[in-house]
């Protein structure tokens, strides 16, 4: 098992780890079609 170098220090270790936000909400089924239609409508 690989370990990152780590030295205990006063206070929490400075070893950041990214925690990307997950996608949980699904766009409404017809949302993209309606949006595309409105976009065309606005352009015209």
């Amino acid at each position: 098992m690989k370990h990152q170098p780590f030295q205990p220090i006063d206070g929490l270790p400075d070893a950041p780890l990214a925690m990307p936000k997950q996608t949980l909400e699904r766009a409404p089924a017809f949302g993209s079609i309606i949006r595309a239609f409105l976009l065309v409508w606005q352009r015209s």
Partner: protein
Amino acid sequence: MTNRLTTWQAGGLRFLTLGFAAAVSLTAGIAFLDLIGGNRPGFLDWVRTILLVLTGFWLVWGGTIGLLGALSPVTRRRQDLSRPEGKTTVLVPIYNEDPVETFSRIAAMNRQIVASGYAEFFHFAILSDTTSLEIAAEEASEFERLIVEPEASGRIFYRRRERNVGRKAGNIEDFIARSGAAYDYAIILDADSLMEADTMLAMVRRMDADPKLGLLQTVPVVIAARTLFGRMMAYSSAYFSRYFARGAALLQGEDGPYWGHNAIVRVRAFASCCGLPVLSGKPPYGGHILSHDYVEAALLARGGWKVEVDPELGGSFEQGPENLIEYAKRDRRWCQGNLQHRRLIAAPGLKFWSRFTFVQGIMAYIASPLWLTLMAASLIASLIPDNGGERWGATPWIIGGGVMATLLLPKFAIALRGAIDGNNAKFGGWRIAPAVLSEIVISTIIAPVLLGFQSRAVFQILFGMDGGWPATERDAKAVSPKTAFAASWWIVLTAFAALVFMAYAGPDFLPWLLPVAGPALLAPFVIWATARGGERPVSTWLFSVPSERAPSPIITEANAILTSWRASEPRMMSTLAEVAVHA
């Protein structure tokens, strides 16, 4: 050796148990329809039948899990005494709890870890989200006492956030963003959690041995209960929970649960999969995800990681609410959290069982207002003349007997299994008989009161009321009659109205309403009486649990440290100004 099922076996078992629950509830529905409407059912008869089938399904489903647990073989693992490979941080998120109690438990766990000889592999991080400056000051001064514990320096950390963004999930996320890369695993505890060092080591070894294992959940046992309500819940947790968890573990397989604490996670898996978004819209359905644990388990499973629960891992403890009001407060939070999951059922990429778990959580709360609606519909039905349809002879006793059997069979099966596998001996042998019967009687009496609280919570949330996330006061014990009445007068009023209505509209059916309306009518008394024993534990003979009969070493150690800390002043009394420096 393991009795973990393959994906196909688990799938087959899920199909069988779901099918069984559906078949039983549909059969009950047919019998009920015959009873109330014969071969000429009216609209209200159909409504009542559908409600009975819906609520009955989840009742049978829960009972089936208990039966499965009572019948399932025990997983015996070969004892692994290897040296841990991964570095672990024990995270203790706190939020306005009593610092002396929490920190003394951490001191006990640290002493055991140091005594095990593996201190270098375990750090502790107290992650405070405390909002009360007074409690924060106590935390700071108690930390001074903790930091002089054996090998504590450089291994035990404390930090406090000024703004508790994202609540507990945000608190842990903040830690990972700052220090996560320093650790392989994180054992996540609650402020009231306690865990044997041997259990922590066993969990780390399991993670070391299985690189695909993303999360391993223990089944914590409730300890240190003092009131009648608390002790009954503790007994139930100690005696029944392990078997129910065994049944659930068989069905869940590698898509298991996470209950938010007393579990170990693989930090990199957790970081890559469990960054929770803020849901669109306003609370109660939008905003931060409240019951984050179920969602994190689902996200880990989505990411291809195994999420398992191991009911055989002992040495894992927690505390529970000591009275019905505190229980209802916690339930209100969980209710909102679970109902919020309706937004996530269709989340992309989730496994079927994760989606089902969300539905199950929602139904656990929706069932109460559905039962209430069934009763209300039955009251109204008593005003409507019978259609005179022909009946084949179903009686109310068949339906009532079926419900009783569903509720009681798993408990009796567990008692029988306990007599065979030696579990009953840990609870005093024959003394399980009065204890289990008392648990059944008391839980039957409090059920209508809980039905009232839970139904109100669901209706509040459906009407868009955000209950927030208040901390459970686990120390809150005795309840005065005045407080009990203030919390439950509306349950009394509702029960009284229902009884008067039934006495007028259908006196023949009055006896069938009494088991529910009777305890509800006495709700303040039930709350007050079950909260008795705060100063000195009650019913210690009746609800005798292994954690008191033969206390685990960690419980003895934690109690000894707490007593000595309570008897002496902290090393340094911090002022509010010092808190600001720590924050």
